[in-house]
């Protein structure tokens, strides 16, 4: 069906979810009370802001990921033609990986891959 299938699928997803939620809304009876709207924190009122800065210590991973993901994008076209190009492809990729791996080792040595 080609690219139009994407539109079909998105529409299908939207219809499916909307219908499901609408039916649920019609069928259920909503009640309100002040406690119901509170954020769940094991039954104790939450302390401090909930939308807080959370130090998740993976920003370095995100950076390294970016590098590797770009590398992955480069690899896709290479992978398609690797078999036809032959030995040159292997040599190229070895050089490519070598540089990348050196960077990876450097990052590892610097402790960038340690969760802080």
């Amino acid at each position, binding site marked *: *069906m080609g690219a139009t299938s994407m539109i079909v699928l998105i529409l299908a997803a939207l219809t*499916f979810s909307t219908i499901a939620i609408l039916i649920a809304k019609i069928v259920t009876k909503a009640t309100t009370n002040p406690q119901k709207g509170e954020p769940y924190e094991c039954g104790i009122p939450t302390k401090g802001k909930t939308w807080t800065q959370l130090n998740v210590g993976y920003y370095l991973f995100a950076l390294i990921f970016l590098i590797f993901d770009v590398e992955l994008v480069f690899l896709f076209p290479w*992978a398609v033609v690797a078999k036809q190009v032959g030995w040159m492809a292997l040599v190229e990729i070895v050089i490519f990986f070598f540089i990348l791996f050196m960077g990876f080792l450097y990052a590892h040595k610097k402790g960038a891959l340690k969760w802080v």
Partner: protein
Amino acid sequence: MLSFSDISKFIDSWLRDIFNPTWTMVIEMMIAGVCVIGLFAVLGLVLVLMERKVAAWIQIRLGPNRVGPKGMLQSLADTVKLLVKEGMTPDGADKFLFNFAPFIAMMVAMLLMAPIAFAKDFQLWDMNIGVLYFSAISSIMVISILMAGWASNNKYSLMGAMRSGAQIVSYELSAGLSILAIVVLSGSLNLNDIILSQADGWWIFKGHIPVIISFIIFIIAVTAETNRAPFDLAEAESELTAGFHTEYSGMKFALFFLAEYINVFIVCAIGATLFLGGWMPFHIGHWDAFNHVMDYIPSSVWFFGKTFFLIFLIMWFRWTFPRLRIDQLLNLEWRFLLPISMFNILLVTLMAILGWHF
């Protein structure tokens, strides 16, 4: 022999006889949409039941056996239950993002259906970059989780979402690299070409050890990407109560739940396509007589059989292993999976160039 492709061709030609091409297209699209929704619903029901039965048998229990014959209708009853539950929005939440997140999850799951070949010549979109499309769309999934976690106004949700971000982002790489191994071997990004390249044997048998390694890495990586145990840190119930969907209830929760199971199905379908030949029957080299016998089994049976085998594998993992810790999870990716898969791709390239595969 009646097959899915015959049916679709028949409907197509029948519609073309009656309507003009534009209307044919519209009607076909509607039929496709309804079919996909139906498949979605059925898969959700089947997979939930399957999960519960697998879990029960592993845990020396019987599992659901009350609703319907042998508990077959249990997940239907669950759906009805979820339908009559109130879908709350917490007071402090970002209302728009909170309510929109499940839609994104559903859309991603639905979009991933496009390149999958369910049977011979039965595919929604035979695109020439199917593998890339899969990688690209599946990484959108994390956005819905981040959205849900952030919008919930709950610390557990936020932490779950952040964990999920770190996790999916990391495992994206090794999943991509293990897929690349097959791309190198088959020389195409088109899923149909990849399937056809396995006509004389599936890649997992043809490709020796390197392909088996990339298959193992693929299974680990997609288990992590779909947030399934032992990598279910985003919803680790003993740490974060329910992680990113702590605040979700009723149908909105059900949509997340459904999307998770559909994602499991899709990644297993992709795995089956790449490593186990998709709808391609079990063929051995040039044993034509044997291959011919195998061809009698419909292609859709092959496809679903392989896919469900992989789904069972993932469920089996879930009910066997304890959960990893967040730093160990990233350690596994960056210290083990990534270097191994990088080295593996070199091996596969060498093998492809030398023609050592069968």
